């Protein structure tokens, strides 16, 4: 026990930016949602960023660029909340929270997409992004339904709406292609 307390004391003093009292300001579910959403956003950004050089469909290129930029600013907002609550930006991998994350798109997917060009690329990106944003909608509805912080819930509502609309657009692109 003594050993543990020493470790704890060392850890607390080691976290220069973390106020000991600040850690409880984020609701656990809000925190988990943000910690799950951040890497998910990052992966989405990585995939849509490939469109600029590879996509054939002009509308898809335009949508991809807008997704890339809007998700980047959303990520800034999310990081801002976690930081202000003294929370880590990512859940520790061995924690329950880390295990609880929705499956992120296969990291190999970026590799597979990178190898494609033109119509083949467009089709694969559209399908993969529909799936990716569909996961985002699920996480957003979880936060809107069970989260605590109103600002975080408002962001979740916007994520739900915008991703649902994006999926609709991407499905029309697929139907046309």
């Amino acid at each position, binding site marked *: 026990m003594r*050993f*543990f307390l020493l*470790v*704890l004391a060392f*850890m607390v003093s080691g*976290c220069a930016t*973390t106020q000991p009292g600040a*850690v*409880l300001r984020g609701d*656990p*579910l809000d*925190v*988990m949602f943000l910690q799950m959403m951040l890497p998910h956003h990052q992966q989405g950004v990585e995939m849509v960023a490939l469109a600029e050089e590879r996509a054939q469909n002009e509308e898809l290129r*335009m949508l991809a*660029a*807008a997704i890339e*930029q*809007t998700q980047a*600013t959303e990520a800034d907002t999310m990081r801002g909340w976690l930081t202000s609550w*003294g*929370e*880590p930006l990512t859940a*520790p991998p*061995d*924690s*329950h*929270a880390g*295990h*609880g*994350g*929705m*499956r992120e798109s*296969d990291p190999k*997917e970026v590799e597979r997409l990178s190898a494609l060009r033109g119509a083949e690329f467009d089709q*694969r990106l*559209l*399908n*993969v992004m*529909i*799936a*990716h944003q*569909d*996961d985002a909608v*699920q996480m957003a*509805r*979880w936060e*809107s*339904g*069970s989260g605590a912080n109103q600002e975080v819930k408002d962001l979740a509502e*916007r994520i*739900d*709406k*915008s991703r*649902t609309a*994006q*999926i609709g*657009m991407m*499905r*029309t692109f697929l*139907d046309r292609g």
Partner: protein
Amino acid sequence: MKSRSRLALASLSATTAVVLAFIVPTTPAIAHGTMSDPASRVYTCKNEGPETPKSDACKAAVAAGGTQAYYDWNEVSLLEAGGRHRQLIPDGKLCSAGRDKYRGLDLQRADWPAKRVSPGSLTVTYHASAPHSNSNFEFYITRDGWNPTQPLRWSDLVHLQTFNGQNPSTFTNWTLNLPNRSGRHILYSIWQRVVGSNEAFYTCSDVDFGGGTTNPPTTTTTTQPPTTTTTTTQPPVGGTWAAGTTYSIGNRVTYGGVNYECQLAHTAIAGWEPPNTPALWRRL
């Protein structure tokens, strides 16, 4: 044991240790799973290989909705279901749980790989890659006379049995009593988590009772889901922001009485209103 938990704790930062103490009791950590026997559609196509489907049905499913669904075979779920299955999942989309990601699973075909079954007892197996305690499992079979080339509706399902308060392991078996049927049917299941999460999982397993001369209907009335047509319109100069409009850099709009200028060409959608998207709009 004691020294082990000390080590584990030492590996976490104090912050996370404190936070974890708060999280653990209510953690909505997400479970994962699907029916492995009779194999659900997603399990079948995942086993064939997402990039190399073998059956015509899986090939068609991948063609219709891409491969990602089959990498994430254990997540045909709704995170906030909370028992509202019939409210949230529209008829015709029961196999995908109404999710676009899994839309390939809703294909109305009479050639999904099916397990041969007989009326009477059938042991089914659920593969939960992340099992969670306190769960209810409901099982249904399609009604007599149901046709696999028609959309699967809630009203097509006949309740077989529900197992409440289950603590599933990685592979959990239940024994069901199948009624008399002939030809192809769907064994449908709902796994509703009860404590600490509203998440529910849905599975469609094709089974064949044999003897079914399921006449292919002469007219396949495939109800096409209405595709949301994005009518891209030219923005009126100085008009009000409107979803569906394609804006170019420099276009100006008003939203909530405030003027904005477009920063990045895009088609406007709900959720991308100017005040919320500084990447797209600059307030004037």
